[in-house]
């Protein structure tokens, strides 16, 4: 008998029952939540893990000898270990908890950047970066006199110009920082190749995995990056917790980011000695409940299966893209889905209806979309648009929801096309 190798498709009904917030009406209509790139909904398992921590184990970490403190510390450090395993890090020492992706980038820009970047150096970014992977580097450039250079995006199809990259990746470049998946275009970038090319020249790399971790397998060893970051809240975890991965030798060579409790081994009146990594970068009481919630989220995601989540994301994106294209007279962004490089979000523009009007009308139909610049203003300027409307999916979304979204788009068009 042939073995069944492929796991079956997702059991959407049972998955959806795990997410209390999905089961509600908005403006009288069943909620269709298509704003997952901004933040995902949370499964019961995560909400329960956080409640259980506060109800049973709440205490401060690392400083107490009593039982509750032991449990809190154990929970917090177990979460760190789980994160290391989730992204294939060699050791939990390479995992720094932050508030999110944004704080992780700021941490590298300060603690690594100030020591390694000087006047005349180049920091290479791409035109599709989120503001959080631009502004911290601008601040660093201002402090050091370094300059920022951007790998161009080819156009509405949202690809990085890899020919230009060959020219731009020079020995002046100290760091190449880029997103794994674009939150505006949906593009999945060839991160392995980008890291390999940088490494050949001894250039450090940072991968913004805010839109990829939890959406597809992400393994830092396979990717070959020096730093990587993501946010818990976009992948079923709570807000307020995020992760910075850094190769241990790099983290060890870095100065602290903030000073305070927990990050020291000895403090005298005039100077102090730092704690070992990763604690050196975690000043003050951390978000213990957040880490524990994130742990539960990672367990949940691996039960669903990241390969299957990716397949589902790609399927929904392709379905929505083709159906929207078939409407005609619509501007769609990001790679064509048959490339396999368009992750689970679609940015679009109707020439006759402004994105905000689309969002407001969709909202009244119970459909949560997002409109605006998506924190990628330079990219929007490059594409010559002020804003786009965006539908972003996750593994609990369904083709039926996309059908409802498409019907609503058609209705919105009729509504705005009416004779006045």
């Amino acid at each position, binding site marked *: 008998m042939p073995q069944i190798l492929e796991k079956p498709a997702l059991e959407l009904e049972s998955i959806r029952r795990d997410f209390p917030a999905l089961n509600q009406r908005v403006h009288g209509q069943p909620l269709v939540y298509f704003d997952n790139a901004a933040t995902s909904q949370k499964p019961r398992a995560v909400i329960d893990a956080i409640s259980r921590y506060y109800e049973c184990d709440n205490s401060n970490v690392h400083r107490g000898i009593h039982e509750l403190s032991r449990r809190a510390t154990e929970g917090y450090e177990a979460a760190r270990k789980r994160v290391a395993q989730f992204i294939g890090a060699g050791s939990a020492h390479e995992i720094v908890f932050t508030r999110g992706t944004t704080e992780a980038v700021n941490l590298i820009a300060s603690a690594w950047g100030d020591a390694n970047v000087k006047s005349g150096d180049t920091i290479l970014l791409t035109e599709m970066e989120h503001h959080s992977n631009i502004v911290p580097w601008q601040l660093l450039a201002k402090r050091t006199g370094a300059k920022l250079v951007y790998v161009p995006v080819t156009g509405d199809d949202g690809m990085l110009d890899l020919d230009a990259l060959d020219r731009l990746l020079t020995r002046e470049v100290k760091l190449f920082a880029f997103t794994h998946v674009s939150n505006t275009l949906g593009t999945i970038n060839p991160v392995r190749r980008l890291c390999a090319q940088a490494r050949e020249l001894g250039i450090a790399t940072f991968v913004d995995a805010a839109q990829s971790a939890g959406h597809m397998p992400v393994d830092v060893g396979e990717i070959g990056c020096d730093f990587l970051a993501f946010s818990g809240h976009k992948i079923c975890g709570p807000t307020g917790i995020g992760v910075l991965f850094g190769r241990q030798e790099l983290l060890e060579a870095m100065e602290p980011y903030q000073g305070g409790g927990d990050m020291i081994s000895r403090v005298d009146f005039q100077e102090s000695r730092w704690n070992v990594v990763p604690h050196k970068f975690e000043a003050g009481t951390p978000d213990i409940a957040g880490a524990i919630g994130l742990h539960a989220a990672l367990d949940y995601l691996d039960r669903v299966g990241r390969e299957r989540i990716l397949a589902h994301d790609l399927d929904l994106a392709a379905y929505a893209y083709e159906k929207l294209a078939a409407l005609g007279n619509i501007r769609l962004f990001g790679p064509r889905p048959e490339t396999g490089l368009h992750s689970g979000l679609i940015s679009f523009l109707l020439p006759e209806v*402004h994105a905000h009007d689309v969002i407001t009308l969709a909202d009244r139909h119970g459909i949560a979309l997002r409109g605006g610049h998506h924190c990628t203003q330079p990219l929007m300027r490059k594409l010559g648009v002020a804003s786009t409307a965006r539908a972003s999916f996750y593994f609990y979304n369904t083709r039926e929801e996309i059908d409802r979204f498409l019907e609503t788009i058609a209705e919105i068009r009729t509504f705005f096309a009416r004779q006045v």
Partner: protein
Amino acid sequence: MDLEELYQDVILDHSRRPRNFGEMPDADFHIHGDNPMCGDEVTLHVKFSAADLVEKVGFTGNGCSICMSSASMLTQKIKRRPRAEAAELSRAFQDLLTAPSEPEPDKRLGDLTLLRGVRKFPQRVKCATLAWHALDQALAKPTAKETNFSEETDPPAP
């Protein structure tokens, strides 16, 4: 339902065919406002007469239908009004949209009253008031010919 109330025919008409839309090289003031939350942009061009009337007013920019129609109606409404009266109308219009309890509309506002539908869409109020915030700055006759401002993102609750 609310949507018809928000997107009335008059509003759609103004957003499709904005009045007094275009550059105005001889304006006394060019006030550029943007709403960083959503990317709406309006530049209001205003010229005053010797008798302190709003002699000419026009706008350029890019925004949603609420933003564009509000700017378009604004220009029609305040053209040739004394500066002080334009300020009164601006106050009356903004109160109509943002006062905690909805006031009786000032009769002089005319079709602009239709925009009070945004009261049911709190996230859209800033779209309707952007051009008026630019107007308020022009009416104060700033020293510079060109002014840029950005709307505040959601302020902390009072």
